[in-house]
């Protein structure tokens, strides 16, 4: 059973730009799914389509088994969402803002509204600022209020779009702890981020977007396995070491400063070491280096400041 599925979900903006290009998401129920990709890779547009805010150009999507956007009013009361930053009425207090959104929910029980609002504010540590006008909130407080709004009721799925934007490291840690807590209750969490490091510790699954396409989807161990481990030899004679490595048929041999490396693939490290010694290469250090998730992520999404799309 999946909390979110999409099939060939596509969004072409009126200007002709393809923002989301036929993606097939499968978010397992109960998972914490990190939806990763650089800014502009189509994450928010995808989330907007899931929430029925934007209509897909083609393809289909289901939330908790209900087709969207047709069934949004039937399913969204079981879904909490934070989309593209917090947005509230600046002239209302935090608590009144939450009661406004609770009032808009026709399936919410008005009798428990006050208690639920207090609990949600408590959960994000905003109780002391409950009666302060939203316009006087700091960026971090605004972000927390948005998370509180998504937790006004028990949810089966929480969609958080860049929930740590604008938060200091302390706040980021708190949000991570909160996501863990939500997930521990059995709620599926779909969290988007442009930073792998922010979600790496809490995700069970990831989907990686690049220029509107889903370039990877799977569990974190799956993602790790896509990376090719390299054999790394520390030696004074890197050139000679590279010759041995390429003679052994290893791919991408590279000579660096005081070291040589190549992709290990299926080769036996013991044999490589023996060959090196036999060829008279002085081996100071020898090891296998698995690429970091960060490296894999950058490989998938492209490097640096290239704004995709």
């Amino acid at each position, binding site marked *: 059973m999946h909390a979110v599925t999409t099939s060939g979900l596509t969004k072409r903006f009126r200007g002709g730009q393809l923002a989301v290009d036929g993606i097939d998401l499968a978010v397992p129920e109960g998972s914490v799914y990190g939806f990763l990709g650089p800014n502009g890779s189509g994450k928010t547009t995808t989330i*907007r389509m899931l*929430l*029925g*805010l*934007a*209509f897909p150009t083609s393809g289909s999507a289901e939330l908790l088994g209900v087709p969207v956007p047709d069934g*949004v*009013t039937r399913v*969204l*009361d*079981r*879904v909490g*969402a934070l*989309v*593209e*930053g*917090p*947005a*509230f*009425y*600046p*002239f209302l207090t935090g608590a009144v803002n939450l*009661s*406004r*959104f609770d*009032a*808009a*929910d*026709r*399936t*919410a*029980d*008005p009798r428990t509204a006050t*208690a*639920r609002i*207090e*609990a*949600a504010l*408590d*959960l994000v540590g905003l109780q002391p600022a409950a009666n302060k006008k939203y316009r006087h909130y700091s960026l971090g407080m605004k972000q927390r209020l*948005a998370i509180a*709004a998504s*937790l*006004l*009721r*028990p*949810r*089966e799925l929480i969609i958080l779009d860049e929930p740590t934007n604008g938060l200091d490291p302390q706040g980021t840690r708190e949000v991570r702890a909160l996501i863990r*807590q*939500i997930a*521990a*209750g*059995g*709620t599926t969490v779909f969290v988007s981020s442009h930073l792998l490091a922010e979600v790496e510790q809490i995700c069970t699954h990831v989907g990686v977007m690049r220029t509107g396409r889903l370039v990877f989807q799977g569990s974190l161990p799956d993602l790790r396995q896509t990376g090719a481990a390299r054999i790394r030899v520390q030696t004074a004679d890197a050139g000679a070491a590279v010759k041995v490595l390429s003679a052994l048929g290893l791919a991408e041999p590279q000579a660096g400063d005081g070291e040589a490396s190549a992709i290990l693939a299926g080769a036996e490290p013991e044999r490589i070491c023996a060959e090196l010694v036999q060829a008279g290469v002085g081996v100071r250090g020898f090891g296998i280096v698995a690429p970091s998730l960060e490296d894999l992520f950058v490989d998938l999404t492209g490097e640096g400041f290239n704004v995709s799309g």
Partner: protein
Amino acid sequence: MSVADGIVGQAREPRAVPMSLRFFQSELRIVFRRKRNLVLLAVAAAFPLLLGIVLKVSAPGGGGPNDTTTGAFFSQLAGNGIFLSFIALSTMLTLVMPMLMSVVAGDSVAGEAGYGTLRYLLAVPAGRTRLLAVKYAALVAFGLCMTFVVSAVSLAVGAALFPIGPVTLLSGNTVSLADGLLRLFLVTLYVAAAMAQLGAIGLFISTLTEHPIGAIAAVLVLVVASEIAASVPQLATVAPYLPTYWWVGFDALLRSPLDTSTLVKGLLSYAVYAVLAALSAWARFTSADVTS
């Protein structure tokens, strides 16, 4: 943590609360507790007050233009304070009341889009059609409130500054004060209906943009353009089809027998405009991406 655990638990099966007025009440709170809208209502109240004082001081024996309906109201004022209400409604109906209505109507959806709260309301989910219906109901409530503020304040000021008594109608016959007050009540409702029509047009324009100022300006431009067009003699044949043409028709209620043909045509025109505008708003709002 115990309270929080309840929230972060597994979801229960949601129970629908049928026909709840909670969302509408919340919308009314947004409209009527907002400082800006209260200032607008204060303007609506201050205008008849100033008008009464100015007319008392400047023209104690009546006066003013005599060739128009409003002129007729002016000349009656010295003898009967109730006419201050008709003067206030007819003068404010050309610009002040449409302007106040435009601000609230133009802001209704565009303002939510501007704040970004629109996407969160829809994600709640408020439902697009339901959201529009609630927005429109609150606009009608604001229009009613504004017109009744104008007629109530002007009636009070008129009674305080001028004599009050039996009312001489535009048709020349005199009716009792009670009859006159009933007619004032009906006139106020007729003007409120005009505001409800404008509210629907404003709601539609408000769904077209995420910039409330643009929507407000567009509604106002529409009102002024319609009024100018209605006053051009060469356009007399199309004038009755303009949205503002029937607004001043409320003097039909100040004749005996009542000029029901004008009233029916006026209300029909409002209804047609309101329905067309509401349908356009619905068609637009339920099919457009929310990008704010």
